[in-house]
């Protein structure tokens, strides 16, 4: 036997390497392995399947015996999956020899195992080996093609799932950082103003001891002394007033800016996330997060956090002053502090969970609204107002229930702090009177202490409120950072390649896409030449739109690669790449604004002449002129009502204006009647000229211009050719066409429904 050409692998999982090495003969090499995490009865278990240069080896759970299947002609290894569980089966020509089950996390390594198995079988049977299919270097885990100068795979990186830290609120520092200087000034102002507020209680001490008590003992009041003390009181109050104003203004200014930054950054990030994200999240929830949550954080920063910082500084300063006056009395005064701190800590956890729940339930209430109000016509048509009201009532009921539970803990909290305050004061009275009786302190000292700790405990009471607001703000921060931490599943390349001009050659190699557990397309190989028009044909659910979404890079391929002019589209900057693509959708979306703005959406700096030219080419010019304000007419949700065909022609003008090399028409004419369709078709003909075009159309007649038709069925290409060729072949396309020509709409719908049916147990 000649030298086996494939390089063996060495990085076995450590738990298996010993047991496996014992199985191997001396010069036997391992080419691929896969860890199996289920057994045949679908119990969680562990196992290993290995391809070596002479056989397939497998063992389930450690210590059990190894089974082997030496390579021989006719052996076949296949994989299929259903609902997240894969089935790896080994056949010979007569029967199934064995099979293994696994969770789809291992899907890619199973694919590699099979590829390696096929290569080895091929090698053993023919003695030859098929050349590796790509000249590029491939990622070892996901088989994506690596950029030449990059070692790390850009596709795998995004799958690393590290949960963010729990100290969420500190992460707001990222937004506070640009305002460091102003924050520092604000902090110094806080220090000074707090110090100023601590002067008056201090002055009560000499006022009592040097003026009031001597007077009670028969001495006259020293007017100068009184004037000095009282003007001291007034001065301190005025200074505290000015400093307090400056500090609050300064810090509110900063926090408002932090809040604004947070909101805009989150929104900008959200817009960059892939379509997958928007598919999974509900609009109401996202809107609540960006609107209400940022506002809550903002309030927290400008009000509560500021108060809290002031309180902490005040407590620290008060403690220092008290200790300097009389350490023993200070000690007694400060004893309740740790108790309260402990109480706060105790309640903290419960409250945090509670407030997070409240937030979530609040989003749920919003979601009910967001679901129902847009669908109000359906609700009314089916007379389900009562049911929807009941649904809202139920969501509110849960909101109440959870709020009640949180409030049970929360309501206990404040009175407890107040009680502790009273007890603390009592302790100071008792200890103070005892010390006065022993002539250790003067009456003035006790008065000063009581004045101080009166404030002191009031602050503690308000400080305890910080627990709840911090928790609320932390919950909000978490929900904001949930968005910010979400890495787009269509990541920007770390090492982007720039393509200033694009010829428009699109190449799909072994492209596969999986949405959740359903694999939607598989093994798509297709080369589209520059300027060629391709029509995608198939039942709904056959993967036409998926293919277009992949080419637009709204999603990334799960397997394989898409190349434009020979470049992996994942290595291009996303925005730059999409500039080359013009998209006309079935349901054209017009933003609120003028028609001119809508046409110039993809190129905001377009001149009026360009806009008019695009509109003319799109056969939109004339109807626009018929509108009362011409190109300045308002359209969109609150604007002028336009018909479907008119909207469509505006969106065609929009695509024409950016002059893309690649054009995608996703059912561009299917939502309008046939007369309008003819108008649109004329507009489209202008658009298509000279561009690489991929068109999806349900009405096959609209695709007769296409150079080639690609017929898709259940995520795979089944036929390729132009209309005449495909009709002559009398295959899949022929049947589709016949069905439409006969206008047997019913049969078509039935077929569609069947195809949409979850395609169960699809063989790979």
């Amino acid at each position, binding site marked *: 036997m000649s030298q086996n050409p494939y390089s063996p692998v060495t990085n076995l999982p450590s738990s298996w390497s010993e047991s496996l090495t014992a199985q191997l003969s001396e010069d036997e090499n391992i080419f691929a392995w896969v860890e199996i*995490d*289920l057994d*045949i*009865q*679908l*119990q*969680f*278990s562990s196992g290993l399947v290995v391809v070596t240069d002479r056989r397939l080896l497998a063992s389930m759970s450690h210590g059990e015996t190894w089974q082997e299947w030496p390579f021989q002609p006719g052996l076949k290894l296949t994989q299929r999956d*259903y*609902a*997240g*569980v894969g089935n790896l*089966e080994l*056949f010979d020509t*007569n*029967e*199934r020899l064995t*099979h293994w089950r696994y*969770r*789809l*996390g291992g899907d890619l390594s199973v694919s590699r195992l099979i590829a390696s198995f096929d290569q080895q079988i091929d090698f053993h049977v023919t003695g030859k080996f098929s050349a590796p299919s790509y000249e590029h270097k491939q990622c070892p885990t996901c088989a994506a093609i690596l950029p030449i100068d990059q070692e790390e795979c850009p596709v795998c990186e995004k799958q690393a*799932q*590290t*949960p*963010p830290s*729990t100290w*969420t609120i500190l992460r707001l520092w990222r937004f506070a950082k640009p305002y460091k200087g102003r924050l520092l000034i604000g902090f110094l102002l806080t220090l000074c103003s707090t110090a100023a507020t601590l002067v008056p209680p201090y002055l009560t001490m000499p006022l009592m001891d040097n003026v009031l008590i001597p007077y009670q003992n028969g001495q006259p009041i020293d007017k100068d002394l009184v004037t000095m003390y009282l003007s001291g009181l007034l001065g301190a109050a005025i200074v505290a007033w000015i400093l307090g104003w400056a500090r609050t203004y300064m810090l509110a200014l900063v926090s408002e800016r932090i809040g604004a930054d947070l909101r805009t950054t989150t929104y900008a990030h959200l817009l960059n996330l892939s379509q997958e994200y928007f598919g*999974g*999240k*509900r609009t109401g*929830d996202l809107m609540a997060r960006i609107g209400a949550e940022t506002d809550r954080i903002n309030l927290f920063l400008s009000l509560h956090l500021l108060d809290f910082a002031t309180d902490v500084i005040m407590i620290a300063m008060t403690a220092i002053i008290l200790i300097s006056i009389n350490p023993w009395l200070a000690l007694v005064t400060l004893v309740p502090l740790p108790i309260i701190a402990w109480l706060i800590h105790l309640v903290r956890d419960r409250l945090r*969970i509670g407030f*997070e*729940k409240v937030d*979530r339930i609040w989003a749920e209430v919003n979601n009910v609204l967001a679901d129902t109000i847009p669908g109000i016509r359906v609700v009314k048509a089916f007379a389900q107002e009562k049911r929807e009201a009941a649904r809202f009532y139920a969501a509110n009921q849960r909101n109440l229930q959870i709020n009640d539970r949180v409030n049970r803990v929360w309501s206990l909290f404040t009175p407890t702090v107040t009680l502790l305050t009273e007890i603390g004061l009592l302790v100071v009275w008792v200890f103070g009177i005892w010390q006065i009786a022993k002539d250790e302190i003067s009456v003035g000292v006790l008065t000063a202490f009581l004045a101080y700790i009166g404030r002191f405990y009031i602050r503690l009471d308000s400080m305890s409120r910080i627990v709840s607001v911090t928790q609320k703000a932390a919950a909000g921060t*978490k929900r904001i950072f*949930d968005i910010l931490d979400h890495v787009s599943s269509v990541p920007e390349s770390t090492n982007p390649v720039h393509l200033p001009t694009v010829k428009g050659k699109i190449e799909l190699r072994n492209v596969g896409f999986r949405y*959740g*557990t359903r694999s939607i397309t598989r093994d798509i190989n297709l080369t589209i030449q520059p300027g060629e028009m391709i029509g995608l044909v198939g039942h709904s659910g056959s993967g036409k739109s998926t293919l277009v979404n992949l080419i637009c890079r709204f999603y990334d391929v799960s397997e394989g690669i898409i190349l434009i002019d020979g470049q992996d589209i994942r290595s291009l900057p996303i925005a730059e790449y999409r500039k080359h693509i013009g998209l006309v959708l079935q349901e054209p979306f017009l933003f609120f604004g003028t028609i001119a703005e809508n046409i110039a959406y993809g190129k905001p700096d377009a001149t009026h002449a360009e806009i008019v030219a695009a509109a003319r080419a799109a056969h939109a010019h004339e109807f626009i002129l018929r509108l009362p304000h011409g190109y300045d007419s308002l359209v969109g949700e609150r604007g002028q009502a336009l018909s479907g065909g008119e909207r469509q022609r505006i969106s065609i003008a929009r695509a024409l204006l950016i002059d893309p090399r690649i054009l995608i028409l996703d059912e561009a004419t299917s939502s309008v009647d046939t007369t309008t369709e003819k108008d649109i078709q004329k507009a489209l003909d202008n658009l298509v000229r000279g561009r690489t075009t991929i068109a999806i159309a349900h009405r096959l007649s609209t695709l007769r211009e296409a150079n080639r038709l690609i017929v898709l069925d*259940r995520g795979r290409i089944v036929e390729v050719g132009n209309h005449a060729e495909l009709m002559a072949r009398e295959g899949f396309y022929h049947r589709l066409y016949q069905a439409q020509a006969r206008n047997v709409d019913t049969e078509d719908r039935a077929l569609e429904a*069947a*195809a949409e*049916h*979850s*395609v*169960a*147990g*699809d*063989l790979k």
Partner: protein
Amino acid sequence: MNQSPRYRLNRNTFGRLVLTDEAGVAHEAIVPVRSFPISNPSQGIALVDSHGHELGWIEHLTDLPEDYRALIESELASREFMPEINKLLKVSSFITPSTWQVETDRGEATFVLKGEEDIRRLSVTSLLIADSHGIHFLIRDRLTLDRHSRKLLDHFL
């Protein structure tokens, strides 16, 4: 009441179910699909061919003769994978994505929860949790879980 069906079912050596219809045509790789896998699993099972076309409908499994029922049940058992969580051992964090270590009726397992929205409420007490690969884990009654599990779970509800 056993009403014998108008088709024949058997399993071939490749491990696939084969349905032979009235006309004697054999359809290979037949798959039984439950219509209401969550709300009423035992009612309405369709026999579907590899193209997704329905070939037979079983209103209720008990309508079938014993041998057919066994065949379909075994096929269902080999396809259905909805581990039932009995205990939460550990969650890596209360912030998603979070890795959960759980004890299920099919043994211990680890999975990644991508977001709280992947927890679907079936009823007031039962939950269906979809992991990052789309496998569903069931919590039949969260109130019967032990204290520790309930506490962990509570963070996500």
